[in-house]
């Protein structure tokens, strides 16, 4: 984990802090009406959705602000037996990668789609750190609908940072590796290891992602990025560490240089080079997994080429600027003019000016180069230095009133400062050691500077203890006044790195209540109870099952044999809000499936013993939910028990009649 090394020096620093301040009584920090401010009365709605990444859980959680109430966990990069995501036949392909089926990842940074520099509430993007991937969540359904693997990189930490019209998701490799991969000694890092900066396009109509190009970079660790906005639109800024290019004991060896380098990329220029064909095409392998809207089935395709741009052959495309010691965040203010480099091991923070960067480039005011990439003169690009703001600056967001708010991991606080004058205005402790913070719209052109949430890495004594493993802690501050005011402390599911918050009215009106069954194009959908049936094809058995309050059809099945692979295709026939039905089968070695109204989901069951086994609805759907169950009879291999099924009737086998019915219904629907 990223902050592991810093944790080690923390006790000492904390002790020093406590000693110096004589301790902080956190109870006194809460002012009289604080509880009132965070209180959302029963039946009332929160003002904002806050989407927090799940870190090692691989998921995303949605919280309401200011209440801090957990609204939903959205499964993204980890299988989720709770609803069958990654277990159902439809969603299994979402986890396909060039390494095969990878059922877990480490999700770090949330990016909401933008139009003209503001959140538009359409999609949510998040990176998978370990097996480099980017996922897209549709905010109409809060479902993961697409995952694109990024080829040849290692540790996609620096991702997926969005441009102001969602033109690109920009990412960089956290660990440099041999590109393309090859079997070399690790200590040949300097000659063999490279980094990549990746540009993924987002289709403005459907949101579909596509890898446009990759820029081959020196082998540093690319950490975080932001894209320019307004005047700086068309540029990307990426912090790096380990410009020492070390490959072992990084906590020491990658912390030697006084300054690392921030990459400054002119992506409009990159587009020109791409247009001119100045790229090399390389054979590789990566997967694109996309959910079909009508059927809910994920289609997985392997892609085999990538286009590489080399800065040495593409002048004026990439520059470096020195940035103090091992930076983490680099954050662009709402005007697009100021870029904050958060040097996490530095005592000061550097603020760059975009117009000065442009001037320095114009005047070729360079301080040498690295691997053919010009290094812009540090002083020439600097707007100024925020002196001694705290220890361990990690991430900065803005309130739209000219103020910046930075988290300090080591000194465990949030500091408010004036971007123009670099003057420190306020500081508040957090509990403990914040990583990122979030202000609704805080990275956009138009922040809503009302609240700030600090997401902490260390919890310790904040809540009732739960053994060695604890939830993470977050603090909500009211930042509408001159001083930040702590109004709520709430636990969050593991482990939010970054979050973004958006006004509820940009999402709430579009939220889907159920899927229109007439638009269900699933090839194994059962459009009505009378069409429910069982089909056998060799040792493959397909159960076309329906669910409606409060029964499954068919609910008695005979003629299954040991060695069969039984696919339960469950269609939820309900057309009302909040009536999911689930299906669990005794002895299933995968999970259950939860099926939303109008949807079809498939669970594979491979019976292991002969006998009669129960299946049932898992979602408490109605007053007679407990009755919503059935039996499947499993006979020995080679048995002559005929295939039969039924619901409240003598078991029968009229597969043909059901199929005719289905066929005619399809034709009717098609003609309509």
């Amino acid at each position, binding site marked *: 984990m990223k902050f592991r090394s810093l944790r080690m020096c923390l006790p000492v620093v904390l002790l020093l802090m406590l000693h110096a301040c004589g301790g902080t009584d956190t109870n006194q920090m809460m002012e009289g009406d604080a509880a009132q401010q965070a209180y959302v009365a029963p039946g009332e709605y929160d003002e904002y959705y806050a989407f927090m990444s799940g870190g090692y859980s691989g998921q995303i959680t949605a919280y309401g602000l200011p209440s801090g109430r957990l609204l939903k966990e959205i499964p993204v990069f980890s299988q989720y037996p709770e609803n069958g995501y990654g277990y159902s036949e439809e969603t299994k392909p979402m986890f396909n990668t060039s390494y095969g089926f990878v059922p877990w990842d480490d999700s770090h940074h949330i990016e909401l789609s933008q139009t003209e520099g503001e959140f538009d509430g359409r999609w949510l993007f998040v990176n998978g750190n370990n097996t480099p991937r980017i996922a897209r969540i549709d905010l109409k359904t809060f479902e993961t609908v697409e995952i694109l693997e990024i080829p040849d990189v290692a540790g996609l930490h620096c991702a997926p940072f969005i441009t102001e019209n969602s033109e690109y998701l920009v990412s960089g490799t956290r660990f440099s590796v041999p590109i393309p991969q090859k079997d070399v000694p690790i200590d040949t890092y300097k000659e063999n290891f490279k980094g990549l900066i990746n540009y993924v396009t987002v289709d403005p109509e459907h949101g579909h992602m596509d890898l446009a190009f990759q820029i081959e970079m020196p082998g540093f660790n690319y950490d975080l990025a932001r894209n320019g906005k307004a005047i700086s639109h068309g540029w990307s800024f990426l912090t790096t560490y380990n410009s020492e290019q070390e490959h072992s004991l990084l906590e020491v060896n990658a912390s030697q240089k006084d300054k690392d380098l921030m990459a400054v990329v002119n992506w409009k220029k990159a587009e020109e080079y791409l247009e001119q064909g100045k790229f090399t095409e390389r054979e590789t392998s990566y997967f694109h997994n996309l959910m079909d809207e009508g059927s809910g089935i994920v289609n997985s395709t392997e892609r085999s080429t990538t286009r590489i741009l080399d800065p040495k052959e593409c002048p004026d495309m990439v520059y470096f600027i020195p940035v103090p010691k091992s930076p983490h965040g680099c954050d662009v203010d709402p005007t697009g003019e100021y870029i904050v480099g958060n040097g996490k091991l530095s005592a000061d923070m550097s603020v760059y000016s975009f117009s000065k960067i442009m001037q320095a480039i114009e005047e070729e005011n360079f301080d040498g180069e690295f691997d053919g990439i010009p290094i812009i003169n540090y002083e020439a690009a600097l707007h100024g230095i925020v002196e001694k703001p705290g220890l361990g600056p990690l991430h900065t967001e803005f309130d739209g009133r000219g103020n910046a708010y930075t988290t300090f991991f080591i000194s465990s606080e949030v500091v408010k400062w004036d971007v123009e004058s670099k003057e420190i205005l306020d500081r508040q402790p957090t509990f403990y050691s914040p990583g990122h913070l979030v202000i609704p719209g805080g990275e956009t052109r138009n922040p809503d500077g009302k609240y700030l949430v600090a997401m902490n890495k260390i919890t310790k004594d904040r809540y009732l203890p739960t053994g060695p493993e604890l939830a993470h802690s977050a603090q909500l501050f009211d930042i509408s006044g001159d001083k930040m005011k702590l109004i709520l402390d709430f636990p969050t599911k593991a482990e939010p790195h970054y979050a973004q918050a958006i006004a509820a009215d940009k999402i709430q009106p579009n939220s889907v209540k159920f899927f229109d069954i007439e638009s269900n194009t699933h090839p194994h959908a059962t459009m009505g109870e009378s069409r429910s049936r069982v089909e056998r094809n060799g040792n493959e058995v397909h159960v076309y099952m329906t669910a*409606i*309050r409060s029964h499954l059809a068919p609910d008695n099945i005979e003629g299954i044999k040991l060695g069969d692979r039984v696919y339960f295709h469950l269609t939820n026939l*309900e*057309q*009302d809000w909040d009536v999911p039905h689930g299906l669990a089968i005794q002895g299933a070695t995968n999970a259950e499936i939860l099926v939303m109204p109008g949807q079809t989901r498939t669970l594979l069951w491979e019976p292991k013993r002969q006998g009669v086994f129960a299946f049932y609805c898992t979602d408490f759907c109605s*007053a*007679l939910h407990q*009755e919503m169950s059935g039996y499947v009879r499993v006979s020995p291999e080679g048995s002559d028990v005929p295939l039969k099924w039924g619901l409240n009737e003598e078991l029968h086998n009229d597969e043909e009649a059901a199929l005719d019915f289905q066929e005619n219904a399809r034709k009717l629907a098609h003609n309509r």
Partner: protein
Amino acid sequence: MALSPNSSTSRWFQLAAVIALAGVFLFPLWQITLEAAQFPGGLQMHIWINKVSGSDKHIVKNINILNHYIGMQAIHPESIPELKYFPFVAYGMMALGLLGIWINKVWYYGFWFLLLATLGALGIYDFYLWLYDYGHNLDPKAPIKVPGMSYMPPLLGEKDLLNFYVKSYPHFGGGALGLAVVLGFASFWAKWKFNKMQ
């Protein structure tokens, strides 16, 4: 005073009555609202002259799902014959109404108004019979059986039915029908008064 009708007043009233009657095609006749804790905003079922609809397009299906627990028959609008022939009755009455403007006789206005009022009353009685049938003719194998309980919604007014609080009132279409009856009477009255003044 404005109450002295001239020679064309009755015709205007009759035209207005026909236009009002056309309102039964534009709005539901009746609205039955089911209120329960789990259904914020309630479930609104709209009874039109030719169809049954509701606050969303799946309302009949969703009410049927709830009703099957108490053994109530499913509502299948396509198998209710009245919804097929009532529109023709309404068209016929509109045609007869327009004929009245041409005939412009006091007896004809009286006949039209009485016929419309009678048909309206019969329609409400028919609606009552359907409600009675739905409320009393229950499946003996129903999962939920409350001894002595029937589930007939009120024809007009409000009533507790198990977990639902049911409200039943005329909608705009029903109001339009009532207005057409009143305007029909007004044309009869205007013609009668005008004849007396002559």
